[in-house]
């Protein structure tokens, strides 16, 4: 058993037994469902909008090389600099290099899951940089030394009193139950840090090939400060973030907001075209974009699952996923939680150690139904399972399914086996059998009938 699987089984067992947390998550998401449905109803045709959004990403990813080259040429002609990183180590070293060259000491960050993917904060702190997360949820998780619980709502699992206690402990603030006051405490603490920071680091929601712009979406205004005040700015983005045209954002931005957070639009949607131009009042002196591959090109080469690169990280699939709602985000042990995480992680970090996430799904399909860019999420879990059996299948598992197949190929053997099973069930239920025992631990089995359907069928012929 791999270490990630062992950890997953442990953490999922603990989390799925945590009834108060599961109730809390379900209640929190109840509000989201209501506002999402209200906003969806404002679209003339939500399903058609999904087609348009899927098409925009399909076009972008389908000719990724050209769009990235276009983005690079235009962004650099505006005075920015684009770096290409093959993997996490290369991305970290590029970013560290920029920080070193800038003579930086303090770094402020706005929300960016891709920096979580490459474990950037650890690398920066190891080199002695002070790094502060400015997104409220990320800031809270940083104080807790805990990874984000949900890649859009990093601290959705925390009650207000927990956050108030945390602030009292770390920031010396008075206890409060008011969300506004909690926000103000963080805001007062963070304000000066933007001014003091030498480097700002952000992600990118979209890279517009047509105009060479970086599109960043946020609700708090912290990303605008992160991008505007420090001398140097670095945006880290997966290569799949590119879109062909500025006009694509007219469908992608509202859908990102509605599908992910139940908003008509996210509060701030900003397009950055490069560093401060002559005569401009604010903006960084240097603006770098680091484009990260980290096995994305391998996924691009997989025609079955290429569409998982269309993901716009809205989080809709997590919000509707019964697995996520019952085990929470931390149990996944991944950067990207929920269905999209279970699809992507085996590609990004290896099928051998991460296929269990594809197995830990009832394949209900709520994710696929919710995805604004129509990624075939739950069927990709099936494809991951198939690929894992082909590449790393265990002998016992293989023999079991071969045997199952053989029984099903012989109706008489099947009938005999079924009859034997029904007759011996009272005995079998007392044995520590795989599959039967875990079922019986929490659920009953109906008393088996004396005769099977095929035995009874002859009796009911007219």
């Amino acid at each position, binding site marked *: 058993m791999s270490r990630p699987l062992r950890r997953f089984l442990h953490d*999922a*067992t603990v989390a*799925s*037994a945590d009834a108060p947390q*599961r109730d809390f998550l379900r209640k929190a998401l109840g509000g989201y469902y209501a506002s999402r449905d209200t906003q969806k109803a404002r679209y003339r045709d939500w399903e058609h909008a999904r087609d348009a959004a899927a098409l925009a990403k399909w076009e972008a990813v389908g000719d990724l090389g050209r769009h990235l080259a276009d983005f690079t040429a235009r962004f650099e002609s505006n005075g920015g600099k684009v770096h290409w990183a093959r993997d996490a180590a290369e991305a970290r070293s590029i970013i560290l290099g920029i920080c070193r060259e800038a003579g930086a000491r303090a770094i402020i960050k706005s929300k960016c899951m891709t920096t979580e993917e490459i474990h950037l904060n650890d690398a920066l702190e190891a080199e002695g940089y002070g790094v502060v997360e400015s997104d409220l949820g990320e800031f809270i998780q940083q104080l807790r030394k805990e990874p984000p619980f949900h890649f859009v709502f990093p601290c959705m699992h925390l009650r207000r009193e927990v956050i108030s206690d945390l602030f009292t402990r770390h920031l010396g603030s008075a206890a409060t139950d008011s969300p506004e006051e909690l926000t103000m405490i963080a805001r007062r603490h963070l304000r000066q840090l933007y001014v003091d920071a030498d480097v700002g680091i952000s992600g990118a929601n979209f890279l517009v090939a047509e105009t060479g712009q970086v599109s960043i979406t946020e609700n708090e205004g912290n990303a605008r400060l992160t991008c505007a005040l420090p001398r140097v700015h670095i945006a880290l983005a997966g290569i799949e973030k590119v879109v062909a045209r500025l006009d694509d954002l007219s469908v992608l931005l509202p859908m990102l907001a509605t599908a992910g957070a139940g908003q008509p639009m996210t509060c701030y949607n900003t397009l950055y075209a490069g560093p401060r131009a002559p005569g401009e009042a604010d903006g960084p002196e240097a603006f770098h974009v680091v484009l990260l591959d980290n096995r994305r090109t391998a996924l691009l080469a997989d025609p079955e699952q290429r569409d998982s690169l269309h993901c716009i990280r809205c989080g809709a699939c997590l919000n509707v996923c*019964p*697995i996520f*709602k*019952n*085990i929470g985000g931390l149990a996944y042990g991944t950067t990207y939680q929920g269905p999209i995480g279970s699809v992507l992680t085996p590609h990004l970090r290896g099928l051998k150690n991460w296929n269990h996430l594809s*197995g*830990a*799904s*009832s*394949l*209900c*399909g*709520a994710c*696929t*139904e919710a995805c604004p860019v129509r990624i075939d999420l739950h069927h990709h879990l*099936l494809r991951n*399972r*198939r*690929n*894992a*059996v082909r590449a790393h*299948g265990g002998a016992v*598992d*293989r023999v079991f*399914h*071969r045997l*199952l*197949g053989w*029984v*099903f*190929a012989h*109706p008489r053997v*099947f009938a005999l086996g*079924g009859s034997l*099973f*029904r007759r011996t069930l009272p005995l079998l239920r007392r044995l520590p059998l795989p*599959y*039967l025992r*875990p*079922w019986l631990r*929490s*659920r*009953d*089995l*109906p008393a*088996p*009938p004396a*005769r*099977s*359907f*095929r035995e*009874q*069928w002859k009796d*009911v012929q*007219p």
Partner: protein
Amino acid sequence: MRVSLFIPCFVDQLAPRVGLAAAQVIRGLGHEVEFREAQTCCGQPSFNAGHWQVARESALRALDVFRGAEAVVGPSASCVAMMRKFYPEVLAGHPRLEEARELGARTFEFGEFLVRRLGVTDVGARLEGVATYHDGCHGLRELGLRAEARALLGAVRGLRLVEAAEGETCCGFGGLFSVKYPMISTAMAQVKCEALARTGADLVVSSDPSCLLQIGGYLSREGKAVRTVHLAEVLAAR
């Protein structure tokens, strides 16, 4: 019409009354019903576990078993979804792919067959009680069925239909998932069953015997008096 029954392996062995009820309802509408004894399992357990080679053999067998059948009707949305949607997937590039698509087109989930193929909603059933209908995920999302069972239940004399919260939430069965990750599966069952119990219904009805195994198994363990029955059993009641 001559209808060929497709009885899922576990219905054959553990819930034969569901198959018998389905046959009774279809016969009651004046159609002939046959059962081809060479059939066993649709192959879904192996398909879901990643053993597509094994599932492919099951698919090829099903093509032989149901060759020439006018309509194949199965009282399990999940197994019908396997045949209609996933046989073409496991037979991609296989010479019999077209045959699989063609079998999928004449294979129906029980309620779907009555409403969409036969155009019937009132089968003359009578059953006193309050029922809530559980949508199995395969029926709901792979086959796009939602209104069919409700229309059929709505026409049952004496039966009042109530909707549950968490209506489109999975019950947590998921085949081998239920025993490989029993803690998650059970947590899901709990959410589902609590919502079903809150309706005050005395019957939980579904078109998916596998969901009923999970929901019934959990409700029974928790000592709840709610009964679980298949749609076909309700429609066979007089």
